[in-house]
């Protein structure tokens, strides 16, 4: 496979609002045809970064290169980039069809071409029955599809989506995540989506960037970020993680109670420095048979079924917070556990990640 082409290069971009630095020296490459997610807690600068890509904010510093040309100062109406607004921003006085046609009319395309392109996108987004309705006569999911159709019909080089699923209820959200992914494949346009929902970006993105306080913490595939978080914040923010605080040693972490957690220690951590060892809930085995590098016993405090698997809260001497353990329902059937039971937990050194505290 050939090296994927870079479509958009964000190069040391910063944006300040008075005293607040909303985006702080971010550099990122977004590749042709990928589904890219910007993920971070609320207020970390996601919207600001996206608005700079769309042209509504001008960076104080840095360059934004689209196909190698700096567009940082190009006004929004002159960029081959479209934004799907968080609030959808549909024109309330226009029908669905008029909303979708608007962008093509601005390009002064022939009426016949506008008509056929609008018809095609209305069909793709399953909006044909609603073409003559006004936005106020649509449900949340339908409005969201109109906003999407209105941006997609322009065939932008890059489509920006600001929390596109934020206003939808949970069930509809799951369906729309897959729908967006399917659409992106179908139209072959690069998507950059902003979200504060880590699960959403894990499900949808080809690659993702994790932001905090305007800074880029990590940029990689969801799998790589999940398995090898760059720091403690990312480990905690993405998925669920059990942490054991303590001090670094040469081959792991010594917990407060003196127990040793074996794992690979990052080179930057000198022995004795405050450190935290972590392990994902699904990597922990209940009553492990045979040797495991790490073992502890604990008391089950609570358990909950989640369809195929069982989640246990286990109080251990290793950390002040109970361990979260996920086992398959099969494993749980083989040796049933109940609240209050003493259990034995084990996990491998290879599944332990150690971070600076």
């Amino acid at each position: 496979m050939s090296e994927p082409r870079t479509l958009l290069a964000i190069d040391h971009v910063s944006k300040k609002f008075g005293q607040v630095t909303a985006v702080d020296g971010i550099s990122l490459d977004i590749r042709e045809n990928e589904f890219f997610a910007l993920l971070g807690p609320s207020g970390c600068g996601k919207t600001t970064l996206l608005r700079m890509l769309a042209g509504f904010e001008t960076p104080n510093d840095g360059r934004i290169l689209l196909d190698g040309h700096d567009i940082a100062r190009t006004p929004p109406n002159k960029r081959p980039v479209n934004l799907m607004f968080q609030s959808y921003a549909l024109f309330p006085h226009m029908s669905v069809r008029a909303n979708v046609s608007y962008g093509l009319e601005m390009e002064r395309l022939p009426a016949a071409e506008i008509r056929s392109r609008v018809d095609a996108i209305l069909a793709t987004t399953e909006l044909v029955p609603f073409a003559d309705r006004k936005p106020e006569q649509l449900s949340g999911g339908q409005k969201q599809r109109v906003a999407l159709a209105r941006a997609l019909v322009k065939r932008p080089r890059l489509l920006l989506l600001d929390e596109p699923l934020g206003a939808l209820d949970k069930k509809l959200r799951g369906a729309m995540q897959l729908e967006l992914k399917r659409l992106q494949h179908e139209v072959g346009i690069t998507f950059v989506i902003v979200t504060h929902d880590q699960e959403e970006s894990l499900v949808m993105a080809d690659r993702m960037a994790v932001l905090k306080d305007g800074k880029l913490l990590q940029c990689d595939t969801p799998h790589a970020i999940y398995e090898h978080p760059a720091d403690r914040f990312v480990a905690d923010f993405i998925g669920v993680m059990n942490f054991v605080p303590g001090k670094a040693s040469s081959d792991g972490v010594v917990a407060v109670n003196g127990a040793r957690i074996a794992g690979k220690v990052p080179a930057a951590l000198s022995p004795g420095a405050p450190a935290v060892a972590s392990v994902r809930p699904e990597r922990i085995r209940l009553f492990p048979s045979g040797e495991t590098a790490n073992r502890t016993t604990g008391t089950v405090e609570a358990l909950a079924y989640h369809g195929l698997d069982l989640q246990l809260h286990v109080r251990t001497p290793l950390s002040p917070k109970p361990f979260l353990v996920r086992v398959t329902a099969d494993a749980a059937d083989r040796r049933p556990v109940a609240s209050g039971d003493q259990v034995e937990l084990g996990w491998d050194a290879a599944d332990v990640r150690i971070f600076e505290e």
Partner: protein
Amino acid sequence: MAVVSTAIATLLGTLLAIGVEMRRQYGMGLEALIFAPMIIPDIVLAIALLSFFSMLNLTMGLHTIILAHVVFNLAFVCSVVRARLKSFDWSIVEASADLGASALTTFRRVTLPVIAPAVIAGALLAFTLSVDEFIIAFFTAGAGRASTTLPMQIYAMIRFGITPEINALATIVMAVSITALTLSQRLNRGIIGQ
């Protein structure tokens, strides 16, 4: 007279309202200034305008009446349009730019159509106020017989006793005012109902 001053006031009032709402952060002083003509008693405004016009050595006439009416109508149009803009979703203006529209096209195809009911309501209100306004017109008209508004005409005629013509004229003024005011209310209610 009423038509011209209404047209000018509507145009300026709408633009002013948009300008104020877009730059809301420098608000308070400007806000007071815009509302001033609504609050100041007509007679005070009339005298102030009269002395202002004579300071500039303007010849009085229809044009000075129009100017004076624009001053106080502006405040009314502006406040009606601003009330609408308070609930205006500015992201649709950005969406329009994002889809490739210039600032002018955005105003013509998005901003104006959305706020149109408020603009018309403001215009009707201004027109109503202008048609039967007497004091300001009286002060700024000057001596010329050519420049009389309807209420001034009625006032001039009343000095010779109440004639059927006066009754007829008064009825017309009232009918026009009530119609315009009702229409304006209708439109405004439509906006709130949205």
